C-alpha cells in the first residue's frame, strides 16, 4: 500500500512541475515524470509475490507468473512516450526560435 502512495506522490511532483514552472522545457520534463509514475503504478499492480517473468521455459508451466497484460500495454506506452516527448520538444524549439525565450508569460504577452 505504501508503494502505491509513493508512486502517486511522484505523479504529484510532476503535476507540481507542470503547473508552477514557467520554462517550457521544465513543463515537458514534468509531463514525462507523470508518464513514468503511471507506468510504474501499472506494473506494481500486476506484481505477484515470488512471481517470475512471464516466459515459459518448458512445456510444463512454471508455478507463478507475474501478470503479462500490464507489461504488454506499458511496453507500447514507453515507445509512444518517446515520440510524444519529441513532438513536444519540437514545438518548444519552434516557440523559442519565434519569440527568443522559453518563458511562457513572455509568449502570452507577445500575442502571436
Amino acid at each position: 500500500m505504501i508503494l502505491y502512495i509513493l508512486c502517486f506522490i511522484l505523479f504529484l511532483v510532476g503535476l507540481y512541475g507542470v503547473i508552477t514552472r514557467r520554462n517550457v522545457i521544465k513543463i515537458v520534463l514534468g509531463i514525462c515524470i507523470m508518464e513514468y509514475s503511471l507506468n510504474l503504478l501499472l506494473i506494481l499492480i500486476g506484481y505477484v509475490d515470488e512471481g517470475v517473468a512471464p516466459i515459459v521455459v518448458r512445456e510444463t508451466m512454471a508455478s507463478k507468473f507475474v501478470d503479462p497484460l500490464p507489461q504488454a500495454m506499458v511496453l507500447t506506452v514507453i515507445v509512444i512516450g518517446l515520440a510524444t516527448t519529441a513532438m513536444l520538444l519540437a514545438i518548444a524549439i519552434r516557440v523559442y526560435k519565434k519569440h527568443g525565450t522559453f518563458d511562457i508569460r513572455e509568449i502570452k504577452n507577445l500575442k502571436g
Partner: protein
Amino acid sequence: MMTRGMTNIVKTTTRLICGVIFIFGIYLVSHGHLTPGGGFAGGTVMAGAFILLVLAFGDDVKHLRKTEEGSSTLENLAILLFLLMGVAGMLFGANVFFKNFLEAGTMGELFSAGVIPFLNILIGIEVAAALFTVFLAFVIFKEEEK
C-alpha cells in the same frame, strides 16, 4: 581544415562497436518470441546504432536529407506490411483481424509461434525507422539554422 564529427578516439571506438550493437538489435528482434526483447526493444537498439554513427561522424545536410527521406519511406512501408499481415488471415478463411494463421510449431524453436516473429520484425523496422527519423529531423533543423 575543419574536420567533421568528433575526435579520432570516438570515431575508432564507434567503428568497433557499432556493428555489434546493430547485430544485438537484430538478435533481440528475431528472438522476441523466445527471450525478453521483441520488436519495440530491438528496434530502439537498432535506432541507437544509427544515431551513434551520425553523432560520431557527422554528415552534410544534403546527404542527411536523403537519409531522412529513405528512413521515412521505410517506416511507412513497415506499417503498411503490418496492416497487410493483419488482413492476410482473412484470406485463409478466418473471420477475425490478426488471426494467427500459420502453424504454431514446437515451442522454443526459432521458427515457431506462427506469425508472431514476422510481426516482431515489422514492428522492429517501424520503431527503428521512426526514432531515427525523429533524430534526423532535429539534426537537420540544427544544421539549417546556421
